[in-house]
C-alpha cells in the first residue's frame, strides 16, 4: 500500500477532530451540521478530473496554444490557469445547497456561516483524499515512508480550514441574496487566490520549499482573523453566555 495513504488517514482524522470539534464548540454543541461533511467529499475529484482540465484544454484549443508549454505559455493563459482553480472550486463547493435539506438549514446569517464552513471543510477533506490518491498513482514518492509526508499533513489541515472560510463567505452572500451573491463569490475567489499565492510562487521558483512551507501560515492567520470577524458580525443576541451569571459582589461607584 502506498505510504501516503497512512498519512492521509492521519490527516483526515486530525482535520475532522479539529474542524469538526471547532464547529461543535463554537455552535454551542450543535451536531446538526455534521451530515454536510459527506456532501463535499467527491467534489474535489469532480473539479479536478472533469471540470478544470476540460476548461483549460478548451481555452487552450480556442486560442491555439500548444499543450505542455509550461511557463513558456502566454501570460494571460498562465493567469487563466491560476484563476481556474478558485473559479471552479468556489462554485462547486456550494452545489450541495441545491439539496433541499441542506438549503433549509440556511435560515440566518449565522447558520449560513456554519453551513458554508462545514461544506468547505468537507471539500477540503475530499481534496486531501484526491491528492493522496494522485500522489499514490504517480509512483514518484513510493520509496518514501509515511512519516515523510508531514508537509502533506500540515498543508491539508490548514487547507481544510481555508476552504471552510471561503465557502462560509460565499454562503453568507447567498443567504443575503441579490448582489451579495456576486460579492460573496468574488470575495471567496480573492481569498482563494491569496491562499494559492505561495503555491504559485513556489511553482514558478520565486521562493524555496522551506519558505513556501512557512508562507502558508500567513494566509492561514489572515483567514482565521476573517473567520473570527465574520463570527462577530453574524453573532446573535442569544450567543451571549451571561444568562447564567451570578453576581457575587460589585463595587458601588458613587455618582
Amino acid at each position, binding site marked *: 500500500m502506498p505510504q501516503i495513504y497512512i498519512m492521509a488517514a492521519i490527516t483526515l482524522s486530525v482535520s475532522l477532530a479539529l474542524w469538526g470539534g471547532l464547529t461543535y464548540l463554537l455552535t454551542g454543541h450543535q451536531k446538526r451540521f455534521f451530515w454536510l461533511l459527506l456532501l463535499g467529499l467527491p467534489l474535489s475529484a469532480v473539479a479536478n478530473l472533469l471540470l478544470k482540465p476540460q476548461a483549460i484544454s478548451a481555452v487552450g484549443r480556442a486560442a491555439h496554444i500548444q499543450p505542455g508549454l509550461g511557463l513558456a505559455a502566454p501570460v494571460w493563459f498562465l493567469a487563466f490557469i491560476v484563476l481556474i482553480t478558485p473559479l471552479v472550486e468556489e462554485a462547486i463547493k456550494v452545489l450541495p445547497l441545491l439539496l433541499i435539506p441542506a438549503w433549509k438549514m440556511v435560515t440566518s446569517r449565522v447558520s449560513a456561516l456554519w453551513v458554508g464552513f462545514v461544506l468547505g471543510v468537507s471539500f477540503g477533506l475530499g481534496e486531501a483524499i484526491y491528492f493522496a490518491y494522485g500522489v499514490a498513482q504517480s509512483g514518484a514518492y513510493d520509496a518514501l515512508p509515511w512519516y515523510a509526508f508531514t508537509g502533506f499533513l500540515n498543508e491539508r489541515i490548514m487547507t481544510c480550514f481555508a476552504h471552510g472560510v471561503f465557502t462560509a463567505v460565499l454562503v453568507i452572500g447567498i443567504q443575503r441574496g441579490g448582489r451579495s451573491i456576486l460579492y460573496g463569490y468574488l470575495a471567496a475567489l480573492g481569498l482563494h487566490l491569496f491562499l494559492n499565492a505561495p503555491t504559485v510562487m513556489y511553482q514558478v521558483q520565486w521562493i524555496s520549499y522551506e519558505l513556501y*512551507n512557512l508562507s502558508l501560515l500567513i494566509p492561514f492567520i489572515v483567514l482565521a482573523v476573517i473567520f473570527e470577524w465574520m463570527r462577530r458580525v453574524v453573532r446573535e443576541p442569544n450567543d451571549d453566555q451571561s444568562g447564567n451569571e451570578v453576581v457575587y459582589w460589585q463595587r458601588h461607584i458613587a455618582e
Partner: protein
Amino acid sequence: MGIQLSNPIKTFRPRPSFGWFWLVLMAAIIIAISIVPALAVGLSSSSAVVTLIVCIPVAISFLVLAFCFPTMRYELGRDQLKLLYGPVLTYRIPLGEIRSIRRRSLSMTIWSTIRFPGIALFKVPYADVGNVKMCATAALNNILLIETEKEKYGLTPADEEAFVAAIRAQMEG
C-alpha cells in the same frame, strides 16, 4: 480542596479537572506526528531540522505545563489575591482594585494561548467579555470572573462560596 489557615495567607485549590490530560495529549500528538517523523527522516533534511526546532520546544512546553498542573492555586493575602501555576504563571490582583466578582460561562473564540477542556491559562480572548487572564481548570463554563479597572481574571476555585466569602471579608475587613 480545603482552606489552609496556618498563616495569614489562605490557599484555595481549583476544582478538579482532566486539563493535564489534554496537555499531555497535545505533547504526544506533536511528538507522534512531527518530532518522530522528522527524526526518522534524518537531520540531513532542512525541513526536518526546522520541524524539530519548532516542535521540540512546543512539546516540552506542554509537558512542563502538564507537570505543573497540580500546583495551580489561589493565594489570598492581606491586600492581594495571587493566582499561581507553578513557576510559569503568577497574577497579582490588588483587592482594592476589584470592581466585581461574578460567575458566568464565556463564549469561545478561535484565538487562545492555552485553552483546552479542563484548563485555561494566560490571556485568553473571549467573544463576549474580551481578554481574560485565566488560571482555571475550565475553559468556558462556570468561570469566576474577577474584574479590576484594568484587567479581567478567570479562575475556578473548588469551594467557590468560601473563596468569595474570604475575599469579601478581606476587602471589607
